[in-house]
């Protein structure tokens, strides 16, 4: 089972990697409430795609769990499992748990 702290670290590391890849200056602080989808998001939609792929690969590398994080609500501002760093972290934990079981 993946600890939430591990998932959170993976999300933050992945986010930093995507900022480097797309050449964007990261915001001064990034945390649980950092918005990833919709108004005030720190990434555009393609950045979110890159972030999700990056998180999936890091989960696979670090925990040998193969996950697909995308679902039909991915880009919904209201229900997206990617809407903030914290929500995405919870989604990673849940999805990894399902994949491992």
């Amino acid at each position, binding site marked *: 089972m993946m600890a939430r702290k591990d998932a959170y670290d993976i999300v933050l590391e992945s986010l930093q990697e995507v900022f480097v890849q797309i050449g964007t200056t990261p915001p001064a602080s990034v945390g649980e409430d950092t918005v990833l989808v919709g108004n005030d998001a720190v990434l555009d939609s393609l950045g979110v795609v890159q972030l999700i792929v990056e998180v999936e690969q890091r989960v696979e590398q670090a925990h040998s769990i*193969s996950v*697909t994080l995308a679902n039909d609500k991915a880009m919904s501002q209201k229900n997206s499992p990617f809407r903030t760093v914290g929500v995405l972290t919870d989604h990673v934990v849940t999805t990894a748990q399902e994949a491992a079981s």
Partner: protein
Amino acid sequence: MSVAERPVMVITGSRKGIGRYLAEHYVAKGYLVEGCSRGEVDLGTPDYRHHQVDVADEKGVRTMVADITKRHGRIDVVLNNAAIASMNHVLLTPAKSANRMLEVNVTGTMLVCRDTAKVMMRRRYGRIVNFTTIVAPIALAGEAVYAASKSAVVTFTRILAFELGQWGITCNSFGATPIMTDMIKGVPQDKIDAVVNNLAIKRLGTPQDCANVCDFFISPSSDNITGQVIYLGGVT
């Protein structure tokens, strides 16, 4: 060239026919080939690894790609050759048969593209070739659902090219003329002759023809060739 430098290729439907020929062709060219099909295969070389996977099985595809990535850390080329066909008048086609063709030919192609592209994008390089067929553009009676599924593959590939281009991944389609494989062994000879006689080049296709087109699409020099479809035999 060390193993780490050798390009890694995924070929779906590599148990027999065109897929198997291509697996042998690219092993001979120095690729590390990872093949898949529902059945087992042993090419007798350590440069070929087989995965017993149905491309329409999402979890199976994901596990296969994860295994390849773990061992090689890269995927350079994907040849999406796996497909099923069923020659039947549309009035005699059961929904189950139609759904299975769409599942393997369309969803299967999508799943393999999706999961391998995630690996390719990290190295900002990739070549994807999705196999279609001339029976779509020539509107061959008796192949309605199969042709429709392959038309979907062409459209999917054209759009995929735009979605993945920014990461250096090219996506193209290739449609062969009839080739004497198990896929068409049940098709009456007069039907095959009628198709061939309407081609600009009046002969059956060969696995070598397929390799020739793939060689072009996957060449590192073809980095500005994407979203295209090439048909054999003069079909457009």
